[in-house]
């Protein structure tokens, strides 16, 4: 359980998040949505302690994340950033192996290697394990970065736009992996722009607008024409197709 209380944050001196309150329950996939610049990435960075809050607190299972020693935090919480550049010439397996660093300190034992292999397989990367990151496609790279966060075997999994560059098959696969983790008791947060995907795979939504929580609740509460139209300041229709909501602009 991630609890966010009265959280504010600044970027370059300018306030970006204002007094955010939210609870992210384990066992569910929580979609974080909102327009460009709303503060989604900033919120994930603050939860993951990549950025200091200017006020408020974030706790994971009752423990304040800002007080937690970094190695312990990294064993409990994993974060995929929206943009990641990796300069060293790593193979896909090397990269995913780094996900075990908080547990292994850099020396992977058999159990670590089994976890790495399983995460590679989960994201359909087994055949690419030995390839260097600079010789694979954008979507393949994105999957490798996701696999690295899975290899951390965290209690809280924060994914910032994990579906970037992914084809339809892998979109589904990643969302199903997110669900599987959630069902296993992990608190999963996924930043999404595709609200039809959110409607299909998320158990809860938090909508941010201009650094504030605009709406939060179950998908059927948040994914409605009026709410989304106001959130994005553009006319949006929501239709029911084959038992799932489809969002049209």
């Amino acid at each position, binding site marked *: 359980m991630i609890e966010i209380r009265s959280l504010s944050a600044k970027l370059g001196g300018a306030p970006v998040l204002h007094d955010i309150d939210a609870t992210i329950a384990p066992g569910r996939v929580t979609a974080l949505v909102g327009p460009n610049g709303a503060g989604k990435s900033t919120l994930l960075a603050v939860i993951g302690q990549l950025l200091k809050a200017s006020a408020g607190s974030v706790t994971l299972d009752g423990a304040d994340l800002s007080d937690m020693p970094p*190695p312990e935090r990294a064993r409990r919480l994993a974060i995929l950033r929206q943009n990641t550049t990796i300069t060293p010439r790593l193979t896909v397996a090397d990269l995913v192996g*780094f996900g075990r660093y908080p547990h292994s300190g850099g020396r992977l034992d058999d159990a670590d290697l089994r976890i790495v292999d399983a995460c590679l397989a989960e994201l359909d990367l087994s055949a690419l394990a030995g390839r260097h990151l600079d010789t694979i496609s954008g979507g393949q790279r994105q999957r490798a970065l996701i696999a690295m966060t899975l290899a951390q075997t965290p209690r809280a999994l924060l994914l910032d736009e994990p579906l970037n560059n992914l084809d339809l098959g892998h979109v589904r696969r990643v969302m199903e992996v997110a669900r599987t983790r959630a069902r296993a008791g992990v608190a999963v947060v996924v930043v999404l722009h595709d609200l039809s995907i959110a409607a299909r795979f998320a158990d809860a939504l938090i909508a941010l607008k201009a650094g504030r929580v605009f709406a939060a609740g179950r998908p059927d509460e948040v994914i409605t024409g009026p709410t989304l139209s106001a959130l994005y300041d553009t006319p949006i229709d929501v239709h029911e197709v084959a038992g799932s909501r489809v969002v049209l602009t």
Partner: protein
Amino acid sequence: MSRPLLVTGLALAAASAVFLTLGARGDWSFVLAFRGEKLAALIVVGSAVAASTVAFQTVTGNRILTPAIMGFDALYVLIQTLLVFGLGGVGLAALDARVLFGAETALMLGAALVLFAWLLRRGADLNRLVLTGIIFGTLFRSLSGLLNRMIDPADFAVVQSASFARFNSVDDRLLWPAAAVTLLALAALLARHARLDVVALGRDAATALGVDHDREARRVMVLIAVLVSVSTALVGPVVFFGLLVSALTHAVAGTWRHAVLLPLSALLASVVLVAGQTLFERVLSLQTSVSVVIEGLGGAVFLILILRRAAR
């Protein structure tokens, strides 16, 4: 065991054997002791410059930077100039070399630590550190230039010869303390190899993996400052050599692991220095050119790296 490490280790053994024995005449125990000390000096300096450059590039996330860019070389020349200015060339020569070495090392280390403590306070980033280093370097250079205009031309020659690395004429009384400090700092650096691997992924990725990037950077910078201060005080300023060796290391290592990169860089640097010195001193009978040639090569690597980056 990594293959490049093994091959380079063998190459160093071979180069050292040639260095110790080629063209030697007379009393072998004397020749070996005399040349042995020179060999040790080359290896100490090569290892210190190489490993500190590799670590520096990892921490700053930039393969074009070297510690020299923080103004170390310029600071050393300034200290030399100040000493000549204050004591005169003759007075300087009369000073005990150990005292001078200790003072130079302490001054440079002190300056580096003050710079880091000031710059790496919470929130200060490495780009600022590097930029400030460049500015300090320029400042130190212009101060030296100013003083040089005011000193005796004969004394100026002393300053001038101190402005280039002298691999050849290392004082044997300084060698062993320098070697001991270098060895300790290298061991401390190597002990952090796994964390350096994570730091190389960049600030955010390292933080996400539970490595306190800024604290790690500060600690590694202290070790780098020790290595560079000692080696500069021992042989003088080396600007581009570190760049040459680090580019070479990353090219042949075939790995990103610092457990290999750090020792490999030390071995490669030692091979280049020992082989270069053998070639220049024993084969071509030239006295001082090895540092000039090595710096020239390093400078060429620097230009290539810059141009390649510009072309991208």
